């Protein structure tokens, strides 16, 4: 019994190593992972039994069988082999890549328009707009391309990034759903692509003088067990890990944060840092930094997958950038640790906004600092409450992981055995 458990431990260790190396999109599907590991496990035992011959399987045979399986990295790498290369981003991810790129560039265009709006009347609005757009667009293209190259290398398909896709406007979404909606469509797409391989040029030949022969079916060459027992189909409740949205959220937050950190230092947003209006750009930079940090932690969480302790560690780490946001928000209203308050600076930006609207649309609005302060207070307190709840939810998440395992949802499926 003791030997058996030791043997099982060796196999389980190998299987765990393979599981940990699997790409996130696959690890996310618990049922599929179980099937993969079950197949590998059976193979190891078959091989070990063959090596042992008539003897009982020992640690030695199992280790030998595992060695012949290959390295866990190599096995996992094979599962990442998905998608057809198109430049460096796979053909499957290319539509999503272009959509993300277009949407981000459009968003940056409008952000720069907003920035230019504050520069009206300075004589440099146009120049600052174009320089801002060029710099931010270049950085965005580089970052998004690098990210999609990585996702292509890891074998991701658009459906593995469902949340990211769902965040995109419906106009762009439709295109994707028409080509990627079902696995049958994917299979058809693959089959078509195989058929579309370059044609072979073969000279026509005369085969008119050959006679048809009868069909000969080859007999099985290896023994088959007669004891095949088939179980009837049954409905089982299946627990599925629901952490798929983490990577999409992480990518989304990463872009938002980076955009925030870059844009505030571009000439088009210079009004934020001008002495007249006090330097708010560093505040925005710090806030963008916290968003980038949570984005990176979320991406790391998705890469690590279903390993309890590192997940808990990252969840704990995630609390810090969220917690930093609270004093950052408070500093807009009052002094925190000698910094701030930045109330006047924000109200000045509000005033500038009203001023520019009056110029542009010929309004006759008067800026009321009391209304401005109320608006600012609502924004600040609302975000403080939201971030406090986020911190609370992270701690609950850590405890839930400890006592209940991974966040999973149950669904019924029909299992054929």
């Amino acid at each position: 019994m003791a030997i058996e458990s030791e043997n099982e431990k060796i196999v389980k260790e190998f299987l765990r190593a393979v599981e940990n190396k699997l790409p996130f999109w696959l690890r996310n599907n618990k049922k599929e992972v179980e099937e993969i590991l079950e197949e590998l496990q059976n193979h190891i035992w078959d091989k070990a039994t063959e090596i042992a011959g008539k003897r009982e399987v020992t640690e030695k045979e199992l280790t030998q069988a595992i060695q012949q399986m290959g390295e866990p990295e190599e096995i996992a790498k094979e599962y990442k082999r998905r998608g057809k290369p198109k430049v460096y981003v796979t053909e499957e991810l290319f539509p999503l890549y272009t959509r993300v790129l277009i949407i981000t560039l459009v968003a940056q265009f409008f952000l720069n328009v907003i920035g230019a709006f504050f520069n009206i009347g300075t004589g440099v609005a146009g120049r600052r707009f174009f320089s801002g757009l060029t710099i931010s667009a270049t950085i965005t293209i580089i970052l998004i391309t690098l990210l999609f190259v990585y996702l292509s290398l890891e074998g991701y398909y658009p459906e593995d990034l469902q949340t990211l896709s769902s965040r995109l406007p419906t106009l762009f979404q439709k295109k994707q759903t028409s080509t990627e909606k079902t696995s049958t469509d994917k299979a058809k797409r693959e089959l078509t692509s195989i058929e579309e391989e370059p044609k072979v040029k073969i000279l026509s030949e005369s085969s008119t003088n050959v006679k048809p022969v009868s069909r000969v079916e080859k007999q099985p060459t290896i023994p088959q067990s007669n004891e095949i027992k088939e179980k009837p189909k049954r409905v089982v409740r299946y627990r599925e890990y629901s952490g798929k949205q983490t990577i999409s959220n992480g990518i989304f937050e990463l872009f938002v944060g980076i955009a925030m950190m870059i844009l505030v230092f571009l000439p088009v947003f210079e009004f934020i840092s001008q002495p007249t209006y006090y330097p708010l750009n560093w505040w925005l930079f710090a806030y963008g930094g916290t968003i980038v940090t949570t984005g990176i932690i979320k991406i790391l969480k998705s890469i690590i997958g279903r390993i309890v302790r590192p997940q808990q560690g990252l969840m704990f780490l995630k609390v810090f950038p969220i917690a930093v946001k609270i004093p950052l928000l408070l500093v807009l209203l009052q002094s925190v640790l000698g910094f701030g308050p930045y109330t006047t600076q924000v109200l000045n930006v509000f005033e500038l906004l009203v001023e520019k609207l009056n110029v542009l649309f010929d309004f006759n609005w008067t800026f009321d600092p009391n209304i401005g302060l109320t608006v600012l207070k609502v924004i600040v307190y609302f975000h403080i409450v939201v971030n406090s709840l986020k911190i609370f939810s992270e701690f609950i998440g850590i405890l839930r992981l400890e006592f209940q395992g991974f966040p999973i949802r149950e669904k019924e499926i029909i299992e054929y055995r």
Partner: protein
Amino acid sequence: MLKKVRTFREEALIAKEHYRTYVEGFESELLRGISTVTILQIIQQHPQTGLYGYQIIKTLESETKNLLIVEEGTIYPLLRKMEKDGVLKSEKKEIDGRIRKYYQLTAEGQKLLNHMTGFFSRLLEAMAPLMEYKITLPKDKYIYCPNCANKIKLDEITKFCDVCGLYIEDLK
């Protein structure tokens, strides 16, 4: 495969890491496609019962006299991919307390295999003069589509190539 080949002398070509890696890379690329065709061919030979991963590897070893050996762990990702692509279908059966996944060709998989074997056969035939070997294709049993190299049984009742749709009745 060179991966498993020992080096006996220091001046041997593959004693140098650069050349060993080069040849290993070449073999690996070449074997990837060949393994797919061979595995499908083995599965095709058992249309009723299907085969599970370990049986496929053992058959592959015995049929190719241990020359074509796939890294054992890498066959399962390949089978899974082919299943996802609709080339294979699988069925779980319990034997001696262990659940096995038996793989069989789908109807589309069968057509694709015909095309792959046809293409591969014609390729070997075309390369023969260059490589100084002789190859005789069983043209008394099959015709090879002039457009896509699909391998079609002569006694098959079909007027068109399954893969590219070319009219082939005149070729029979």
